[in-house]
């Protein structure tokens, strides 16, 4: 059971994806790293079948992706404002549920439940365009989590969040599994798969410890991590990072 993109080719002015292939299994947390402008967001759009690919194939659970499969794939954009098109936060979150034909009562209870999980109950009747950036990020995430898509694709979910929201978002996403593009190394110990997008192609990092040792991951490591790796070695450092992630998300990170 997986959502896969195979041999994808796509260009804006020049090619961004040059035969990129990636798979997300159900319930798995995978992270996608890559330098700025490498095409991480484009890859997510392509995987969600939102771009006209020049070449390539998208399959969902082994079958070619069909229009009716859209409800099984949720995507959260990097800039939350890009995905707002409703008057109130409530309507924004409720949109997909209404489209799926849920009753008003069900819509209300589901919206309130997801809002409470993310701590945005007090924003429900506000205009989404008038919120702070961090609040917008939470609303954008809620609007997708609410209809429980089988596969979740999230673009930079924890950038610009305060510490409390950061942990909440991380744990919610890690709990249900997703493909996450990020620059934040905190995600690294939680992920069961790590991918890197470079020169239009995706490669899987099989040995994270080795990659940390070689400094071959395309994300800047915080000084604290550098010190840990230098003094304790990458394996022990990764254990400590796992512990930190466990505390942050109150979840069991991947071994």
């Amino acid at each position: 059971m997986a959502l896969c993109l195979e041999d994808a080719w796509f260009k804006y002015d020049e090619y961004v994806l040059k035969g990129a292939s990636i798979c997300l299994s159900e319930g798995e947390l995978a992270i996608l790293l890559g330098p700025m402008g490498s095409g991480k967001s484009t890859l997510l759009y392509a995987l969600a079948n939102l771009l006209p690919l020049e070449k390539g194939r998208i399959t969902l659970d082994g079958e070619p992706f069909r229009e009716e499969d859209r409800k099984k794939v949720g995507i959260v954009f990097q800039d939350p404002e890009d995905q707002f098109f409703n008057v109130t936060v409530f309507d924004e979150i409720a949109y997909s549920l209404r489209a799926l034909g849920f009753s008003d009562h069900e819509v209300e209870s589901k919206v309130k439940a997801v809002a409470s999980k993310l701590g945005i109950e007090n924003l429900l009747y506000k205009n989404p365009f008038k919120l702070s950036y961090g609040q917008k990020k939470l609303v954008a995430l809620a609007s997708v989590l609410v209809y429980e898509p089988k596969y979740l694709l999230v673009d930079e979910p924890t950038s610009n969040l305060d510490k409390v929201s950061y942990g909440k978002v991380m744990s919610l996403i890690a709990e249900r599994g997703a493909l996450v593009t990020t620059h934040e190394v905190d995600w690294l110990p939680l992920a069961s798969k790590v991918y890197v997008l470079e020169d239009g192609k995706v490669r899987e990092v099989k040995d994270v410890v080795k990659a940390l040792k070689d400094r071959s991951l395309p994300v800047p490591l915080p000084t604290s991590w550098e010190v840990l790796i230098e003094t304790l070695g990458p394996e022990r450092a990764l254990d400590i990072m796992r512990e930190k992630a466990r505390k942050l998300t109150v979840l069991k990170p991947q071994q």
Partner: protein
Amino acid sequence: MNLFDRVLKPLNEELGEAALALNYKSRPPKYPWLYLASLLASTALTANYFFSAILVSPISVFVLKDRRLRKPLAVTAAFSAVVSLPILVLNSYKFVNFNFRVFSSTALGLYLASLVGWDGLVVALKDVGLPTEIALALRSLPSQLYSFLHDLNTLVIARKARGFDLSYRKLWELLATAIGSLLVKGMIKSHRASMALKARGLAFITSKRYTFPTIISVIALGVSVLGVVLGGRLV
């Protein structure tokens, strides 16, 4: 306080609210046949606008009674009056005719949106063959208009914060130079919003939920478009 603070900012806010007001959900239909008759009259018979006014007035009263509908109607009417001022100098009859047509079609359009909701309207149009891309763009139009105005506001504030002179003449210069980049930004944002719509719902809405009022509204919209295009030449 400069021109932006006194005039453009409140206008910007009003327009933003008006755009968002279009977004609201459907309500139970009221007098759809009356609506259809009035629509026909206002669009096809606008050459004889005094006669049309009699037919359109019940709808206008309905719209004016609704606080949420009143605002977009007032903003549109005010805009229409301002842009048609040069016509007043040349021909007062044409001025009244033009404003009447704008007012009546806005009132009817708002009534239509309140009948089936903006969503319902777009989905119905999609069902009768409107290309999906256009349907997506239409659906995100009200919120994108708000977003566009928000960006304009931010841009002016950013210029002010950096000590730019925002006197009357300079402000218009700034707006003129900013419009291109704002349009490009708006296009990128609309594209993303249409992708979000595609991903989050419009693709999986079924037309089964939209029945009698939707059908009436779609017919009426078609007639309205024809009427606006022909502009009273039918009589």
